[in-house]
């Protein structure tokens, strides 16, 4: 029980930390949804993709190879974390989510569940 509480607190502390919202493109086709998110500076090992119930969350920590003694003179990206959450609808199959990361762009594919694929409904006659 205490362990569970601890986990909840840990989650909450990272969730309330200020974060950048990565810009996304979302496109849907007949078999599923594809999401692209810009997360420059996030290496694969510090990217987290989580599905919790109907919530899809993407989170990543920015790694800047900054040398010591660096005095910032112009800063547009002033946070070290990206975070964004999406609510999935019922026809999407959260267990089949796949993802790849290339040059700072995350691509997530969420297929539609087999039962949600287009089909014709039989009309019963009694």
């Amino acid at each position: 029980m205490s362990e569970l509480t601890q986990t909840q607190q840990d989650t909450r502390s990272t969730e309330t930390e200020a974060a950048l919202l990565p810009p996304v493109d979302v496109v849907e086709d007949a078999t599923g949804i594809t999401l692209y998110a810009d997360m420059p500076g996030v290496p694969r090992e510090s990217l987290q993709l989580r599905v919790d119930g109907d919530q899809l969350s993407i989170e990543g920590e920015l790694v800047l190879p900054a040398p010591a003694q660096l005095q910032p003179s112009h800063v547009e990206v002033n946070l070290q974390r990206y975070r964004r959450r999406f609510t999935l609808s019922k026809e999407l199959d959260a267990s089949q989510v796949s993802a790849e990361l290339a040059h700072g762009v995350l691509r997530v594919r969420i297929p539609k569940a087999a039962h949600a694929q287009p089909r014709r409904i039989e009309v019963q006659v009694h």
Partner: protein
Amino acid sequence: MYRSLFARDLFSELERLQRDLGSVFEPSPSIRGISRGGYPALNVGSSPEAVEVYAFAPGLEPASIKVDLDRGVLSIAGERAPTLPEQSDEKTTLHQRERFAGRFRRIVSLPDDIDPNAVCASYRDGLLHISVKRRSATPARRIEIQ
């Protein structure tokens, strides 16, 4: 005012507002300044040895990025191909389109003491890092009065 590449939460928006108000009273000394916002987002910093420029430029072909240094002015240019079709067609539906696509160019004015022959650039995880070495600092000296 500018629009940032990434949306912010409320607190960083307040911080931005504060900075914008501050910049009214303390204008940038450079004639170009650095215009804010747009793609790629830039962070610039300097140490006694080098000037470091970080461009947040995800989704580029490394070979297509053009980095030029001309008389102390660094320019970063290129083109990002769109990942999505222009419009929804009968097979696909676009739900969100927030990512940048197209040509871009950003300019950074560098300090006078940089060494134009000692520049290196690397591209990793969508982050372009350009490091420009500075000439070894001349030690401060007292000038004799004749």
